[in-house]
């Protein structure tokens, strides 16, 4: 079970208390009625789905109820850090990200099992 640090409760709590809220730091265009369909598509539908570090919104729905942001590694599922909603996106460019070599992936384990 994952433990996720809630910046409002100021402690790690079980993943069972949280709900995922999609990508963080997606700014809604101020001129939403004027933008083209392509621009709207970019803003509304298209996400990067990166392998590695991702910034996401999470909600401590069965705890304090608050939305906050968190940086997570999509390979290892490790929560690198979390911070309050509205705070700037932290610079984590120096943070090492997980690879298939450092993390036991499903594919690798299945390979061994065979």
């Amino acid at each position, binding site marked *: *079970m994952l433990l996720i640090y809630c910046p*409002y*409760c*100021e*402690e790690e*709590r*079980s993943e*069972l*208390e949280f709900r995922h809220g999609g990508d963080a730091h997606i700014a809604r265009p101020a001129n939403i009625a004027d933008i083209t369909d392509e621009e709207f598509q970019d803003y509304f539908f298209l996400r990067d789905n990166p392998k590695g570090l991702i910034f996401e919104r999470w909600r401590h729905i*069965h*705890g*304090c*109820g*608050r939305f906050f942001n968190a940086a997570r590694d999509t390979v290892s599922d490790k929560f690198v850090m979390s911070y309050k909603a509205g705070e700037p996106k932290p610079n984590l460019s120096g943070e090492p990200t997980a690879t298939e070599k450092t993390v036991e992936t499903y594919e690798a384990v299945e390979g061994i099992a065979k």
Partner: protein
Amino acid sequence: MADHALRKAPLGRHHGGSAGARVTPAAPATRLSLRAGEDAIGTLSLAFGLELPRRPKTSASVSGRHALWLGPDEWLLIDENGADLMGIASGVSALHSATDVSHRNTAILVSGPDAAGAIASACPLDLGNAIFPVGAAARTVLGKIEVVLFRSGEEDYRVECWRSFSPYAFGLLVEGAEDAGL
């Protein structure tokens, strides 16, 4: 037709537990879901006669009335003596939101040396003495449902849950009480 309504407690006929953890339905109480900003906390605290807690997982209690911190601007108020909490709230002019949830919730009391073990059978919260001491309170989950957990004494816990979920919560806690005693 009856002249007046009869109160039917959601867990009226339930009883259970083990030698180490008694599981009992709590007596009816009045409850308030209270939301307020920083600037209204002082006025509301005066009106309710207790200091609304500002720190995560803390509570304040004065003679059967409890204020549990649920979030940065959210509290659950419980009055075991059935005081008119809505009446008190309506007399406060500072901006706040108060909803009477007296009958939305019911509570289950879990007491005894195995009480924490019984709750931990279905709740992911760390119930250790250092991190969840007497007076600690938190909204969390119990099995498949959301609950508010309040540690009212060294070996006493109050599990607040929605009325319609209470037979499920009760059954789960009874199972937990039996398992904790093994």
